[in-house]
């Protein structure tokens, strides 16, 4: 794994973060190729969400480097990272509950992001069409004028995915996208995700092994902030260390 391919979309090297001495992520390195779907799994507290937080700038790293298409992300603000092309979906659905579905998507529309841009932003036909197109994808056409607060849990997850889609990021990071969904919703979501992970790189955190199998190009297993194993699903499942960690807990 130690060759450097300039074509990697994301290069994480020596990433470390410590909270008052406790190293939640320790000297972590991994690389994501274009159009790859990387799934990160691992027991609770392994540092999965923290890794995503570090990449998207929510948590400041203690050491290391995260390069996205050659740009160092660790020195950038969250919004700059988003503009560079990294999108992030949170574990609990996080949408703007006081706004309608339409407005939620509109806010994510990649235009008018400066203060004065936002003041002058016009809701023109192009915007409306794009939003309507996205709502179709995420099964929310009928709820366009609904306040997000009134959506079901699954619908909120879809809305958040839609908000990412409208940004059209090159690297999409999803934190447990199917957690807490009903069976029917889960099926629909898997279908949705399968469609949207085309043409971009994706990092997914997921517990549902069946789901992982469906989508993963590669799997990274985290344990206590470090990589335990990495490779295809079969490779990882066969790794005795992984088996021990999962069964040992």
């Amino acid at each position, binding site marked *: 794994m130690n060759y450097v391919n300039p074509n990697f979309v994301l290069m994480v090297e020596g990433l470390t973060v410590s*909270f*008052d001495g406790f190293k*939640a992520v320790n000297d972590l390195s991994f690389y994501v190729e274009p159009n790859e779907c990387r799934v990160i799994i691992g027991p609770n507290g392994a540092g999965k969400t*923290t890794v995503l*937080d570090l990449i998207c700038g*929510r*948590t400041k790293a203690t050491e290391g480097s995260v390069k996205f298409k050659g740009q160092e992300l660790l020195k950038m603000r969250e919004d700059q990272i988003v503009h560079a092309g990294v999108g992030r979906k949170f574990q609990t659905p996080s949408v703007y509950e006081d706004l309608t579905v339409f407005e939620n998507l509109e806010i994510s529309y990649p235009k008018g992001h400066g203060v004065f841009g936002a003041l002058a932003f016009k809701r023109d036909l192009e915007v409306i069409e794009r939003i309507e197109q996205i709502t179709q994808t995420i099964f929310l056409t009928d709820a366009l004028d609904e306040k997000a607060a009134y959506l079901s849990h699954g619908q909120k997850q879809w809305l958040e995915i839609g908000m990412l889609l409208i940004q059209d990021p090159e690297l999409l990071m999803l934190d447990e996208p199917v957690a807490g969904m009903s069976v029917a919703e889960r099926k629909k979501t898997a279908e949705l995700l399968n469609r949207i992970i085309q043409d971009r790189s994706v990092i997914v955190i997921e517990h549902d092994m069946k789901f992982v199998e469906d989508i993963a190009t590669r799997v990274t297993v985290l344990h206590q902030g470090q990589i335990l194993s990495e490779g295809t699903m079969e490779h990882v499942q066969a790794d005795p260390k992984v088996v021990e960690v999962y069964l040992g807990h």
Partner: protein
Amino acid sequence: MFADYSSQELLAIFAMQGFAGLILFSVFVLMALGLAIIFGQMGVINMAHGEFMILGAYVTYMLSNFFEAYLPDLFGIYFFIAMICAFIASGALGLFVEWALIRHLYKRPLDTLLATWGLSLILQQIYRSVFGAREVGVTIPDWMMGSLPLTDMIEVPINGIFVMVLAVSISIAVYLMMFRSSWGKQVRAVVQNRVMAGAVGINTEWTDRLTFGIGCGVAGVAGSAFTMIGSTGPTAGQLYIVDTFLVVVFGGAASLLGTIASAFSISQAQSIMEFFLSGSMAKVLTLLTVVGILMIRPQGLFALKLRK
């Protein structure tokens, strides 16, 4: 500035000035401890903190009159009884206020600010109606006024020593309560995770009420002690509110140790600047420095770094 003085004189003055700084420190600690409990631990912005202090002062005033009139023999020690009564009175009012007002607002910290501001107006008017608009004079036992000559030149005020001793003992008491008693454990548990604490059988309602009550009680004791150095009137409480909040915020709201450290640094800065500059400028510079540092380090001096 110092050319005309002998080194001995200078030494004496500096010693006394250091002592003045320590007194100011103790005053800040006393003011801020109650608020550190209420604001730091519970997140309630109690703008009526000053009025709780003044309640303690009025209790002291009433007791001083009572002892003068009925128990003149015991007048020398009435102050200790007054402090206990001040704690009980302010604490009881605190319990009531928590029940009537604060408990409805835990989810809206900024609203506690408005509601307690309203409360402070009401309390001020009540004090005015009951005790009159004028300041009242609290008679202090003779042994507590005056100064203690340490050397020929160095004299330290006895009420200053008293305030210092009080600050230290209340700090220790609060520390013991928070970190050594089961009540303290409950408070900290509730602060960290209200739902969880409720689930493991802690009566969160009573913990909140008691915490608020104790915070107010400590304010009452502080107010009682301040009758020795300051004024007691319906609006005197407002004088303390900005300083108090800055001390707590500067210390890092959730940390009692931080409150003490910040009281120390602000008081030293202010007392040194007061000595070399004029009073008003010293105050402005101290406040500016504190605000400046808070802008650079918003979490305050002592803050835990937490995993989100």
